[in-house]
């Protein structure tokens, strides 16, 4: 049996917003890692061995030991590398609870609703559109007047949500609405985040995401 690989490795899939959370977090923390693109149609031994329960990406390997689930990976990075810039606000349990709440909200709501927007038609799609606008307005409410969800610093919720900004164009096209119109502060936040190197280098252009959804639709037989 080969010795465990030292250092950080990320099992990921290029367009995954959950994987991008981890890439952005490690960039913000200045942590070097090996990126390993996974073929989700033909899952590798390494992926199946590292995440036998869910068989999903992202998986972070640290000296060969797997950490699964993107928000758990983010907290692990904070705790295993305490000298790097913290994502969760240090020393403020209430602020940490608030940050966990909003990251959890993003997890519960955004991806599923977005998927319904491009998968469905007619009344169910209209429902999804209404819901997506609600979700964006709610998140805008949580942001308030702050530059970032983390306040003055780009933090846990920012990292959790920013990958979805690459999906805004697709939500807008399928939902026939404008993020800038329904949630202008959120649109401004997205632009602000896009100016950070960690984000600019780790998100794919919105048109590429839109193209990817087109491929998925064909694959699922959604016209």
């Amino acid at each position, binding site marked *: 049996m080969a010795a465990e690989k030292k250092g950080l490795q990320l099992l990921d899939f290029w367009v995954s917003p959950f994987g991008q959370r981890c890439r952005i977090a490690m960039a913000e923390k200045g942590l070097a890692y090996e990126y390993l693109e996974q073929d989700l149609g033909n899952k590798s031994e390494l992926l199946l061995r590292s995440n036998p329960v869910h068989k999903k990406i992202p998986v972070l390997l640290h000296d060969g030991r797997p950490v699964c*689930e993107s928000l*758990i990976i983010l907290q*692990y990075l904070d*705790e295993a590398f305490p000298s790097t810039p913290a994502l969760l606000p240090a020393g403020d349990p209430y602020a940490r609870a608030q940050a966990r709440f909003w990251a*959890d909200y993003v997890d519960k709501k955004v991806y599923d609703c977005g998927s319904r927007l491009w998968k469905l038609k007619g009344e169910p799609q209209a429902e999804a559109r209404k819901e997506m606008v609600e979700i964006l307005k709610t998140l805008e409410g949580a942001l308030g007047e702050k530059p970032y969800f983390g306040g003055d610093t780009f933090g846990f919720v920012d990292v959790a949500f920013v990958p979805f900004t690459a999906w805004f164009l697709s939500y807008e096209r399928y939902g026939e609405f404008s993020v800038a119109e329904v949630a202008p502060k959120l649109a401004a936040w997205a632009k602000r985040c896009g100016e950070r190197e960690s984000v600019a280098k780790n998100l794919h252009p919105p048109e590429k995401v839109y193209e990817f959804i087109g491929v998925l639709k064909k694959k699922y037989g959604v016209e």
Partner: protein
Amino acid sequence: MAGGNGGLKLVGQWASPFVTRVKLALHIKGLRYEYLEEDLGNKSDLLLSCNPVHKKVPVLLHNGKPICESQIIVQYIDEVFAGTGPSLLPADPYERAVARFWAAYIDDKLEPPWDRLFRAKTDEVRAAATKQLFEEVEALEGGFKECSKGKDFFGGDSIGYVDVALGCLVSWVKATSVLAGAELFDAAKMPLLAAWMERFGELELARAVLQDVDAAVEHGRMLMAKNAARASN
């Protein structure tokens, strides 16, 4: 509103295992709190103002400030009251990640089919949800092995984060087993987990906090009848 109990108030509902989860954490830490029982069919202004996003229980109020989502509440309690009573999460970052993984598994993989089981409008839907629930629990045997490392609890020698995350469901595991006519934590398939449940149920903590199983069975029957009746209207 000023009050004793160190400023802790828990808004809950007796049948909810997620409320039980918070009660277990508070009990382990030896924390006193005021408990407010909600009528979920007629939600209070307090609940709606403290949890406007999800409008659900549990909500913990600490000196008037609300914290929502049971796992987030438990981690909050562990952090704020770090000096009081035992720690729930382990100290090591990797072990913390493993504990969080299994706690997330419980809510992400067990809760949805469990919920569907009780809300099912037809026998077919209930049967499918039941089958899925019985399949999803099997992974917990491996979870127990990974977390306990041969000891009595997920937390090792003593109760930890995952014991709380799963222990809160013990009355519902037993109630569901009665209602489904089959052991959800089947000792033949999941010997370690079944033994853990026995052990957990014997703790003073469990006796003090967990719902009465008969009451849970009755509540479950009521939920199933209510949802089936709605379908035929």
